[in-house]
């Protein structure tokens, strides 16, 4: 049984390969035909989806075997003395889950894009990028070692850049693409440093298998103090974590994600909500053995950073008016949720929330895209209203998404959020539990605010919305289905946690005390939004009038962008750049000019020796020969060997 499954797992490389093939085909052959390009791309990703489902079923059937022993299929990629890097595929429940999520959301988004991108002049290019993204993301999920992961990590970053800047004729899109690329690069630098240091210490970058990082850390490796008592592994864990801070939009480097909404909406759904941004969470989960073996500080950092991001982004989302930006800040907040789930030590809860979040957030982004499409590029929620009647499918599926993210049972978000909160409380992090709970309340509030304002209330006479075509509503329905049932995998005996966990597996049922508290938080949030924005018992304007400072702060996203701008303009351009300019002008240029001056001066003196007189040269040559002869003769004391008579063997 397991043997057969192994054979199936060996073909996992096809999953990223097919979209890559489709990228090449579209880019090189079928670019002129829009219909053919989209068909190829969708066929490739659907085939990958089929394979991913097959692998998922295989993993479930092989049960504990594959849970304990990830199936590795590798080929040697780079082999020089002291450097062995393999490329391959790693199948364990976590990667199987990611494969399913990524291929599912990617296929839904690609089908949806037929409608959304209809008539766009860059239609084929769009599908080429989509395929390339799918290939890179799937390759990253399957990576067997850190370097392979890093290569695909950068590739998804590239695709993100290309797709954010897809409408490159818009200045804002260009700027957003650059911002995303450069901001994530800051994080990637830390990750790269971590990879290099780890390789230097361990001589391998493999996650699992004989002699791999996890095995060495678990058995033979002795941790040692590196900087001021902080242990080596802790420093490595922090360095590795800097990558996810950039990629998954954790607090100081989160600024790129809201701006990334300049890209087409399906791109936001796929890359900036469901898949690429969770790459950081996935990386931390993959490297969890590193964080586990490091001192508790590493995980505390992850937890603290995640919890702060969760509440920080949630408070910003309350005061935003742009439908996509609300969803973007919601994504940041939920990413923070996943991070602190890892930080409190629950790999299961984090991966579970990653999966459910991918379903309902992709659903809501695609729903938002459907609305924007119907209203001809209007994105401000106050310009919408009463859309539910005109767009029943979009409205209903969006409502399912809102319920799911608010943690109302039996929708998917309830199960994963409950598991995270339970893990935080049970593992002794009451503060983080409280932050998570309050964030859940805020989440329910701002998501229902968005829903009530945009979909209910009065219709605007200037809008003439119409329901989107079936290629756009079908993915919504499918994702809504998963947003409902996605959480039910927590229920059976061999539940999600049985497959995806770290360390010993403990079966835990739903803790109904915590569950009811979190449901209460969700209901409270929705209820508050209802009385504020539907019945208007509380006037939002009055609240704003009472706390103008707070509102302004939230509206302007805590002025983080302004602070960065100030920092770059005043500090970097103003002080640091001036100092470096002076240094360049006087020190660097001084050295270079000094060298040139020295060369010129010595040339001026030495050229007197070039008289052009042949006889002078001959004289110098002659005396040089004499000097060499004398030096050789006296210095070595071997005058006799140069004696012609002696050379001839003593002629009489």
């Amino acid at each position, binding site marked *: 049984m397991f043997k057969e499954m192994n054979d199936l797992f060996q073909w996992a490389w096809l999953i990223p390969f097919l979209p890559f093939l489709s990228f090449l085909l579209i880019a090189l052959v079928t670019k002129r035909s829009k219909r053919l390009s989209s068909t190829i791309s969708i066929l490739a990703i659907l085939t990958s989806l089929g394979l991913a489902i097959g692998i998922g079923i295989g993993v479930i059937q092989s049960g504990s075997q594959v849970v304990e022993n990830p199936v590795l299929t590798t080929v040697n990629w780079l082999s020089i003395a002291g450097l062995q890097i393999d490329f391959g595929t790693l199948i364990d429940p976590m990667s199987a889950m990611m494969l399913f999520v990524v291929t599912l959301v990617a296929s839904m988004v690609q089908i949806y894009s037929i409608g959304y991108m209809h008539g766009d002049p860059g239609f084929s290019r769009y599908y080429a990028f989509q395929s390339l993204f799918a290939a890179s993301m799937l390759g990253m999920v399957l990576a067997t070692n850190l370097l392979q992961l890093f290569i695909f990590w950068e590739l998804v970053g590239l695709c993100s850049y290309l797709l954010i800047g897809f409408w490159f004729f818009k200045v804002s899109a260009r700027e957003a693409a650059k911002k995303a690329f450069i901001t994530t690069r800051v994080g990637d630098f830390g990750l790269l440093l971590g990879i290099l240091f780890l390789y230097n210490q361990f001589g391998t970058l493999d996650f699992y298998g004989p002699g791999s990082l996890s095995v060495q850390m678990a058995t033979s490796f002795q941790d040692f103090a590196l900087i001021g008592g902080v242990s080596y592994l802790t420093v490595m864990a922090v360095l590795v974590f800097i990558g996810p801070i950039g990629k998954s939009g954790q607090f100081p480097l989160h600024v790129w994600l809201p701006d990334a909404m300049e890209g087409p909406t399906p791109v936001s759904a796929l890359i900036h909500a469901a898949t690429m941004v969770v790459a950081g969470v996935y990386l931390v989960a993959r490297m969890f053995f590193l964080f586990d073996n490091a001192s508790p500080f590493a995980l505390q950092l992850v937890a603290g950073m995640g919890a702060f991001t969760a509440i920080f982004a949630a408070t910003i989302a309350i005061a935003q008016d742009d439908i996509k930006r609300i969803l973007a800040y919601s994504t940041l907040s939920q990413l923070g949720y996943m991070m602190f789930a890892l930080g409190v030590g629950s790999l299961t809860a984090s991966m579970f929330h990653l999966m459910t979040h991918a379903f309902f957030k992709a659903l809501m982004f695609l729903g938002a895209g459907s609305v924007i499409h119907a209203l001809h590029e209007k994105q401000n929620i106050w310009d919408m209203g009463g859309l539910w009647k005109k767009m029943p499918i979009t409205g209903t599926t969006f409502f399912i998404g809102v319920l799911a993210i608010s943690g109302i049972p039996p929708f998917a978000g309830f199960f994963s959020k409950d598991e995270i909160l339970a893990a935080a409380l049970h593992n002794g992090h009451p503060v983080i539990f409280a932050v998570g709970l309050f964030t859940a309340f805020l989440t329910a509030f701002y998501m229902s605010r968005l829903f009530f304002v945009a979909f209910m209330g009065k219709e605007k006479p200037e809008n003439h919305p119409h329901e989107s075509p079936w290629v756009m509503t079908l993915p919504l329905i499918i994702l809504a289905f998963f947003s409902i049932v996605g959480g039910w995998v927590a229920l059976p005996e061999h539940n999600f946690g049985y497959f995806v966990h770290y360390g010993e597996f403990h079966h835990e049922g739903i803790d109904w005390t915590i569950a009811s508290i979190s449901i209460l938080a969700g209901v409270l949030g929705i209820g508050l939004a209802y009385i504020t924005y539907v019945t208007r018992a509380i006037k939002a304007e009055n609240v704003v009038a009472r706390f103008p400072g707070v509102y302004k702060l939230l509206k302007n996203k805590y002025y983080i962008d302004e602070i960065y701008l100030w920092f770059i303009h005043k500090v970097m351009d103003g002080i640091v750049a001036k100092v470096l300019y002076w240094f360049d002008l006087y020190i660097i240029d001084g050295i270079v000019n000094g060298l040139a001056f020295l060369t010129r001066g010595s040339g001026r003196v030495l*050229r007197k020796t*070039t*008289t*052009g*007189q*042949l*006889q002078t040269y*001959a*004289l110098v040559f*002659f005396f040089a020969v004499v000097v060499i002869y004398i030096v050789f003769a006296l210095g070595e004391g071997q005058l006799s060997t140069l004696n*012609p*008579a002696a050379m*001839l*063997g003593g*002629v*009489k």
Partner: protein
Amino acid sequence: MSISVGLGSYLLVGAMLFCLGLYGVFVKRNIIAILMSIELMLNAVNINFVAFSRFAPWADPGTNPLIGQVAAIFVIVVAAAEIAVGLALVIAIYRNRRTTNVDEFNWLKW
């Protein structure tokens, strides 16, 4: 007192001739004279070749393979060719510069 003319005498003559040639190369101003001095130096070498060939202890004492003599003749031939080229250059320079004074041949400097 017997005066034997041995290898040393030949080498001495050769060395003197070589030094004369060297001196001429260094001090003469006329390019033709310098070429002649070079010929002197070459012929000093020829004397050495022949002298060594005559006095060297050969493996088979009965037969002298005449290697030195061959080398000397070779040098004479090459010297003839060299002087032909050299004089051609001198004529070419003279046509341009109207001089054979090497002090004025200094346009190969900075």
